[in-house]
C-alpha cells in the first residue's frame, strides 16, 4: 500500500509540473463527457467548443493572448469531476465549465469559495439563475421554467392566439428535471384558460405507446409540449406518427431535438413539422460556422463529422463564444492578460448585443439574473433540415419570476 501511494503521488507531482501553463495563456478548464451515459451530446458538443476557441486563437487569440482549453472527460460521474476541477485549479484556470447537473451542484459551492466563474448551460434548476445565490455560476441558457413559458406562448400563437378551452398535454421524462416544467404550466393554465394534463414516461424512456395513445385518443390534446431526453424524443416522434398526430402541434424542449433524434425517428421526411426549442441556433448558415469551415480548409483538413449535428455542435460554439466574450471583457477591463476569476465573472455582465450572426440569443446577464433573460428560439423540422419557426423570444417573464421568488423564499425558511 505504501508503494502504491508513493507511486501515485510521484505520478501526480510529475504531471502537475508538466502541464503548468505560462503566464500569458488564458486557461479554461473544460469538462466534457465523450464517454459515459450522455456521450451522444458530449462527442458533438465538445468539438464545437474546441473549434471556436481554435478559430479565435488562429485570429490572434484574445488581444494577442492565446486561449488554452484543458479538457477532462468525467464520464458523467461526480468524483472525477471534483478531481478535474482541482486539476484545473492547479493549472490556474480563470474559468471552469462543469458539465452535467450533479457535477454543477457538486462544484458550485467550491467555485464560489475559490472565486472561479463557470457556466452550466442546459443544466441545473431554474433557481440556478439567481446570481445572488450563486455568484460564480452562469446558466446562460433558458431554464426549464423559461422554456415552459416559451412553449405555452408558442402553442398560443400556433392555435390562433387564444388558448381558452384548449387542451395541452405535457409529456415528460419521469425524473426531477422532467417534472420541472409543470409548475409553470400550473400557473399559466388558469390565466390562459387552457386545461393541461401530464404524461410521465418512465426511464429509460423507450416505451411510451400507451401515453401517446392517451394523449391523442383519450385526452385529444390540441397541443403537446414534450420534455424528453436521450432516446426518448425519437421514440415519441415515431409513436406520434403512428397515432396519426400532426407533428407541427408538438414542441420539444431543448434536449428533445438534435439531428440525431430526427435521424433515429426516421429522418427529416418522417419528422417534418416537429418543433423544437433551442438556446443556441441550429443549422449551418451562420458566419461563424463558415469561418470554422474555412479554418479547416486553410489547414487542409476535412471538416469534422460533428459539424453535421448542429444542435449540439452549435451549443459548444455558443458556450465557447460566451466564455471567450467574458474573458475578453475581463482582459479589456484589466488592460492585460493577468486576469482573475472575479474579473472574468464581471466580464459576463458586460456581454451585450453579441449574437455571432444569430447563433447566440441577445443575452443580457445581470447580477441578479444569470440566466441571461431566458431566450429561446423554435426551429421546425423541414424537408432537409431545421428551419427557424420563430425569432429569439421569451414569454411570461413575470410569471417565471414570481414562481422563482416563491421558491426562493421557501428555501430560505
Amino acid at each position, binding site marked *: 500500500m505504501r508503494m502504491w501511494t508513493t507511486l501515485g503521488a510521484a505520478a501526480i507531482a510529475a504531471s502537475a509540473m508538466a502541464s503548468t501553463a505560462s503566464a500569458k495563456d488564458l486557461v479554461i478548464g473544460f469538462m*466534457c463527457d465523450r464517454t459515459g451515459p450522455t456521450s451522444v451530446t458530449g462527442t458533438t458538443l465538445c468539438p464545437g467548443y474546441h473549434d471556436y476557441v481554435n478559430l479565435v486563437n488562429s485570429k490572434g487569440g484574445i488581444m494577442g493572448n492565446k486561449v488554452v482549453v484543458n479538457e477532462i472527460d468525467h464520464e458523467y460521474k461526480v468524483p472525477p469531476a471534483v478531481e478535474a476541477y482541482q486539476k484545473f485549479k492547479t493549472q490556474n484556470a480563470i474559468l471552469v465549465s462543469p458539465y452535467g447537473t450533479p457535477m454543477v451542484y457538486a462544484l458550485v459551492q467550491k467555485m464560489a469559495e475559490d472565486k472561479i466563474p463557470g457556466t452550466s448551460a442546459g443544466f441545473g434548476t431554474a433557481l440556478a439563475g439567481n446570481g445572488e445565490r450563486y455568484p460564480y455560476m452562469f446558466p446562460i441558457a433558458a431554464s426549464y421554467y423559461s422554456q415552459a413559458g416559451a412553449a405555452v406562448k408558442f402553442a398560443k400563437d400556433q392555435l390562433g392566439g387564444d388558448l381558452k378551452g384548449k387542451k395541452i398535454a405535457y409529456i415528460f421524462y419521469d425524473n426531477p428535471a422532467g417534472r420541472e416544467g409543470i409548475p409553470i404550466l400550473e400557473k399559466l393554465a388558469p390565466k390562459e384558460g387552457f386545461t393541461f394534463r401530464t404524461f410521465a414516461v418512465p426511464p429509460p424512456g423507450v416505451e411510451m405507446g400507451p401515453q401517446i395513445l392517451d394523449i391523442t385518443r383519450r385526452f385529444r390534446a390540441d397541443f403537446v409540449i414534450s420534455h424528453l431526453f436521450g432516446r426518448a424524443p425519437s421514440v415519441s416522434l415515431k409513436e406520434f406518427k403512428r397515432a396519426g398526430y400532426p407533428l407541427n402541434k408538438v414542441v420539444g424542449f431543448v434536449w428533445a431535438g438534435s439531428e440525431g433524434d430526427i435521424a433515429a425517428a426516421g429522418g427529416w421526411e418522417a419528422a417534418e413539422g416537429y418543433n423544437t426549442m433551442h438556446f443556441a441556433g441550429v443549422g449551418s448558415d451562420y458566419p461563424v460556422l463558415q469561418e470554422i469551415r474555412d479554418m479547416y480548409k486553410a489547414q487542409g483538413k476535412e471538416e469534422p463529422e460533428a459539424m453535421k449535428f448542429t444542435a449540439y455542435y452549435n451549443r459548444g460554439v455558443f458556450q465557447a463564444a460566451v466564455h471567450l466574450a467574458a474573458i475578453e471583457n475581463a482582459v479589456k477591463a484589466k488592460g492585460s492578460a493577468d486576469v482573475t476569476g472575479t474579473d472574468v465573472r464581471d466580464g459576463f455582465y458586460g456581454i451585450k448585443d453579441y449574437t455571432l450572426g444569430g447563433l447566440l440569443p441577445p443575452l443580457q446577464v445581470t447580477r441578479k439574473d444569470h440566466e441571461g433573460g431566458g431566450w429561446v428560439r423554435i426551429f421546425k423540422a423541414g424537408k432537409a433540415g431545421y428551419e427557424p419557426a420563430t425569432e429569439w423570444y421569451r414569454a411570461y417573464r413575470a410569471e417565471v419570476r414570481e414562481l422563482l421568488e416563491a421558491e426562493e423564499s421557501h428555501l430560505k425558511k
Partner: protein
Amino acid sequence: MFFRESGEYKTDYKRDMTLYPLPISRFAVGLMVLLFFVAAPLLMSEYQLTLLSLVAIAVVGALGLNILVGYAGQLSIGHAAFMSVGAYTAANLVTKLDIPFLLTIPAGGLMAAAVGLVVGIPSLRIKGIYLAIATLAAQFIIEWIINHSPSISGGVQASIEIERPTILGWKLDQAVELYMFLVTIAAIAIVGTQNLIRSRIGRAFVAIRDQDIAAEIIGISVFKYKLYAFGISSFYAGVTGVLYTYYLGIASYEQFTLVVSIDYLAMIIIGGLGSILGSVLGAFFITLLPIGIRLFMENIGSLFLEPEALASIISQMRLIVFGALIIIFLIMEPEGLNRLWINIRNYFRVWPFSY
C-alpha cells in the same frame, strides 16, 4: 530477514487479543498514521489531498461492501442505493432540523442500516446471483422513491444543498480540513472492520460464506447473521453517502446510480474479496487509475498529437486501457491486489534464504 515472527510469546489474554500482535505490524500502522495524518496534510497540495479525500470516501464504501460480499458472501449490487439513503437522511436532518453535523453521520448510517435490513430479508431464501437481482431491485426502488417524494428529496431536481460541515464552530472548508476529517473516518472504518472480522460476528460471516448449511449445523443463526451483514454493510454505505454529501455540499440521487454500485463491486473484486487491505487497495486503484492513465496519455500523447485530437482519443483510450488493466490484474492474480501484496510480502519474509 527484516523482521521475525517467531519469539513472540503471548503471556496474557490481553496480548493474545491485541489487534496488532507483531512489532512489525505495529510499526507499519504507526508509519501509516504518520504518512496519512502528518506527512500528507503537511506536504501535499490541495489537488493531491482532493484525490486522497475521494479515495478515503471510497475506502469506507468499499469496506462496507466487502463485509457483505467478501466476508458474508452475499452478492449485492444495490450498494449505491444505501449510500443515497444515508446522504438524504443527513441532508434532511441538517437542513430541516439543524442536527449537529457529527450526529448526522451515525444517523445516516443507521437509517441506511434499517433499509438494508429490509432488503436483506430475502437473503434467507435466495442466494448468489438471484440475491444480486433482488438487491438490484432495491437499487431501483430506492432511487424511484427518492426521486418521487419531494419530502425526502427536497423537490428541486431531487437534490438538497447543505452548508460546509462545522465541528464545534470550526468550519471545515479547506481541502486539508476536509481531508483530515475524511481520513479519520476512513481510519475508524478500517479499524472497526478489523475488529468486526475477528469477533464472533465476523467469524459467523465467514462460516456462512464458506458453507451455510455447515454453519447452521454448528449453531450459527444464518438468518440473523445474514441480516447483520446487510445491516452493517448498509451502515458503512450510509456513512459513505453522508461523507459524499458533506464533501460535495449536495445530496443528489444522480451521484448514486447503478454505475456507482458496479464501481464499488469492481473495487472489492480488484482489491480482493474478503480482505480489508484489499478494499483499501481497490479504492485506491479504481479511483486513481483513470487519472493515472489520463496523465500518462497526456504526457506521452502530446508528443505525437495536437491537444484537441488528443482529447477525444484520451477519453476513449482511457476506457479501453482501464478495462484491459482490470482484466490483466485479474488474470495475473484472481484473488486481487491483496493477494499480490501477500505474495510480495511472503517473498521478502524469507529473503534472501528462500529455502
